[in-house]
């Protein structure tokens, strides 16, 4: 199977090791992985700020880069969710007219990707491993106490794990994979799925609340003895890492792909 690897812009620029771990793992499991070199970004930073109408260039580029693959995989729940929900093809950004939302964004022109099959074949890295590759064991060891951060878009958007608000049986795809890692000790949190406060441009537009949310999330992990915080979204981890560094903490963040690819 041919897999197009989508590496989100900030991962490309700041966390290349996450991209490398993702690529290596996919190859370990027998995928033919291609990284289209002209990729940039999913357009989410603009869309979440209310500028979805400006994302046509990003969308067109994304489609051009990834349409040909059997699957598209990305180590970011947030970017994948954005593509699934908001990618639309050529000239179909017609649903937003600044008319007070009097037209439905569910109606014509917004079929969640008309003119492209991408929303149906893009997967976040964890769910690709559990749902498509059906990974049941892996060769990895990471002998540390690790706290899992459930990033909201992965959890509540892509349903990577059960949500504490719902009265339904529990499950967690990231936890399922991490439990296959030798030596790992997963810690419990007081608030298992509270948002870290990153929120895209929220992290600078609402700096005070964003930081407070991040501090509280980090404190929960520290309180419960984490040596590492992991998750399926590097953006949340980047935000918490910034807080940990400022606090001179020795606790580090690792993307889940790094742990699943680790031989320590």
């Amino acid at each position, binding site marked *: 199977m041919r897999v197009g690897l989508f590496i989100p812009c900030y991962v490309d620029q700041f966390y290349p090791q996450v991209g490398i771990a993702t690529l290596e793992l996919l190859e370990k499991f027998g995928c033919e992985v291609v990284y289209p*070199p002209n990729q940039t970004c999913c*357009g989410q930073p603009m869309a979440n700020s209310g500028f979805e109408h400006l994302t046509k260039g990003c969308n*067109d580029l994304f489609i051009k880069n990834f349409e040909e693959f059997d699957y598209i995989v990305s180590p970011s729940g947030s970017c994948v969710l954005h593509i699934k929900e908001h990618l639309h093809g050529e000239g179909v950004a017609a649903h937003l007219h600044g008319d007070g939302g009097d037209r439905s964004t569910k109606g014509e022109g917004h079929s969640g990707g008309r003119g492209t099959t991408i929303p149906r074949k893009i997967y976040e890295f964890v769910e690709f491993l559990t749902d498509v590759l059906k990974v049941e064991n892996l060769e990895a060891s990471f002998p540390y106490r690790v706290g899992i951060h459930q990033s*909201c878009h992965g959890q*509540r958007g892509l349903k990577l794990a059960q949500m504490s608000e719902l009265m339904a049986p529990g499950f967690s795809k990231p936890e399922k994979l991490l439990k296959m890692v030798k030596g790992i000790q997963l810690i419990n949190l007081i608030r298992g799925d509270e948002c870290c406060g990153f929120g895209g441009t929220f992290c600078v537009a609402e700096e*005070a609340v964003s930081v*407070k949310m991040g501090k509280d999330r980090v404190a929960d992990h520290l309180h419960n003895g984490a040596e590492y915080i992991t998750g399926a979204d590097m953006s949340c981890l980047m935000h918490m890492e910034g807080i940990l560094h400022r606090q001179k903490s020795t606790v580090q963040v690792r993307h889940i792909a790094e742990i699943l690819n680790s031989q320590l």
Partner: protein
Amino acid sequence: MKGKDHAALADEFNKDEPRVNWHDETLWWVRQKRDKAAHKVPEWEELREMASRIKDNVLSNLSEYLQQFEAAATANGITIHWAADAAEHNAIVLSILRRHEVDKMVKSKSMLTEECHLNEFLLAQGIDVVDTDLGERVVQLAGEPPSHIVLPCIHKKKEEIGEIFHEHLGTPKGNADPQFLTHAARLHLREKFLTRRVALTGVNFAVAETGEFVVCTNEGNADMGAHLADVHIASMGIEKIIPLRKHLGVFLRLLTRSATGQPITTYSSHFKKPRPGQEMHVVFVDNGRSTHLGRTDFRSSLKCIRCAACFNTCPVYRRSGGHSYHTAVAGPIGSILAPNLDREKYADLPFASTLCGSCSNVCPVKIDIHEQLYKWRQVIVQGGTAPFAKKAAMKTMNWVLSNPSVYHGAGKAGRWFMLNAPFTVNNGLNPWYKQRDMPGVPKESFGEWYKKNKK
């Protein structure tokens, strides 16, 4: 917009971190109580689905149900009034007071009257209004609006309430014992209940089938007011209607479990007809609701039953306080309702969220709150209420991200600056850096690594 926006008000709230912790933990405790209560109902998720569908039906047939209610209630001896907006609502209430030559009134919890600014209006007309819900009375004495629709004075510590009571009700200075203060409030309010001839209540549910309405309180203050007064006025938003009495079996089970984690409110009082000699009025208030109903993307926010579960679960609300939303109904639901009333004034509210989605999951009527927050952002930006600087930045960002060669150059340049001139980003102008370090800078991007190692 005039005045401070949510970000600025939240920034002020966060100056006192121990207080933020206290506010957060208090409301998180309520969320946990909600979880426990909901867990005890095996069919919880089915109940939510059913409530959601009943409300969808209501919104699709609103005018019929309102007329059905009007006919039934009129037959029961209730007088129905129709108010197109807040001003009409306030004028109707005033006209009833004037007709009875009354200048004093008691009022139980009604967020609608907060929305209509009824108290200020009546005060200006020389009418004295006493809010009889304990929390509402506290904020009324403090001269503040409620910060939460179910727990109006949740932002006040008991010591502060002791001070307010000392100043206004003459309780001993320094006494902050909740039981003592509640007793003092009870004595204070009892006198009001006994001497007021007009009582106004809100409406939680109005049953089209029977023409009765249900008012839910924990303190019984709505009943004390209504039963002792000669005139009972009930103000309701037109979306409060439900088709059948049996639907209360769905909504009453969801409402209080979602709100406070109680199985049901202490008082769920049905008002169907005035007792002999009493007058009973119901004021239907539109105030933008019909317009909202016409907005396909946003109409479902009218399904709200005002339980405030979305407030309690919202990590932003818990850490910014209700007043930072500068509107009668704060929190996530308020952030999608308020722009309907005044898009410019409330342009900031849909942005006061990380879009984490917890609000939509706790909502007992399944409103897709976080998705509507996203959609309001698009509408607000397209409507031209986004600040210019942000617009310019977004256009630049789009240009960079649509052009791979520009993107790769910019990324490389950015990383070069961070490595060689860290002061260009690590300074007071960068809001990220204020309380967070920047990520470390790798020597090459993933793209560069891939080119070297894989191609």
